[in-house]
């Protein structure tokens, strides 16, 4: 299974980026191989950054997203792409977030946890 974590840095020791759409980058972690790759989130969207980021991680093959917060447009796009959304993982490292998810202390959310910027 491939898990994507919004990250402020490029290693498992980096802090989770609480933002999804405008996250510094994403770590794509492969649970079977125990390896990861860094996916850049270089976009300059005036709007709809969450939608664009959802497209990016969907194309990278993510099945789960772990992040701090997720708004309605990003959430609906992720849902359409079949990606489970886990929010509330800010304040820890990427490695810790993966561990918490695997041990069941972080679980997928059924709805966005913050309001959109444009609605």
């Amino acid at each position, binding site marked *: 299974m491939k898990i994507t974590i919004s990250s402020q840095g490029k290693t498992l020791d980096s802090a989770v980026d609480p933002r999804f759409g405008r996250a510094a980058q994403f770590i794509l972690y492969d649970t079977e191989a125990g390896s990861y790759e860094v996916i850049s989130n270089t976009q300059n969207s005036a*709007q*709809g950054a969450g939608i664009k980021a*959802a497209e990016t991680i*969907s194309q990278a093959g993510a099945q789960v997203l772990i992040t701090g917060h997720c708004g309605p*447009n990003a959430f609906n*796009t992720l849902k*359409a792409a079949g990606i489970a959304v886990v929010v509330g993982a800010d304040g820890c490292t990427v490695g810790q977030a993966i561990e918490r998810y695997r041990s069941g202390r972080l679980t997928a959310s059924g709805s966005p946890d913050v309001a959109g910027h444009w*609605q």
Partner: protein
Amino acid sequence: MIIAVASGKGGTGKTTVAVNMAICLNEPVQLLDCDVEEPNCRIFLKPDIRRRERIVLPHPVVIEDLCTSCGECSRACQFNAIVSLKTRPMVFPSLCHGCGGCIKVCPQNALAEGVREIGTIETGIARQVEFVQGCLDVGQTLSPPLIREVKRRAARKGITIVDCPPGTSCPVMAAVKGSDYAVLVAESTPFGLHDLKLAVETVRRLGLRFGVVINRMVSTDRCVVKYCRSEHIPILLEIPEHRAAAVAYSRGQLLVEAVPEFRGLFERLCCRIISEARGKEEGPAVTTRGKIVGTA
């Protein structure tokens, strides 16, 4: 002739200048209130509204039977309003700017055009002034298309005054573009000067002829005057700080009617702007300086 009344900073007196100019002009005059998020010229002009039109903006609608999920639409959209995953594209109408690009690039003709309402345009008469205002619906964020619709109603003859939104972003561009002259209304404070500089940069980039009106001028702070002189920007009028003006404003009255001394100032302002806009050689910067006796 189209005269745009703009400013960088909000609350400097754009509407005050626009409505009082409109009332003082001696030729056919039209006023377009393009501050569509909060149009307020009507408070002072009290127009008789005769026509209301709902304004819509197009957005794509996916015809699922024709779509092959190729993703061309998503790649064409600069606003992330349509996204193609492995499934059929998802459309976010509230993010759509209505450019129609996705519909044009779709190789399957699988996108139709839907519309959403964004606001209302009201047209009417306020004494001799032909009045048009745009009102953006509550909850809408995209004002430039509505502003452009208001401007499409600009008269071909006479003088059209455009009351612009504040700032220097897209709505201001939409409102100011295509004008023959821009009047920048500024207040003489450090903050006012900072934002005036941004507004000057904007109109210069658009290649517009422009001048400055300083509102609520107090003799102690001359930062805007100094700036305009150093940049060779004509100061069209200095409106003095005056208690009676504030009282009239708070009651929704026109300055030129509530405080008769103001009429001369605005009449001279109109003449000055029209001659500047008609491209008279710029002479030495002569400033009309309001001198009003009375309780300040």
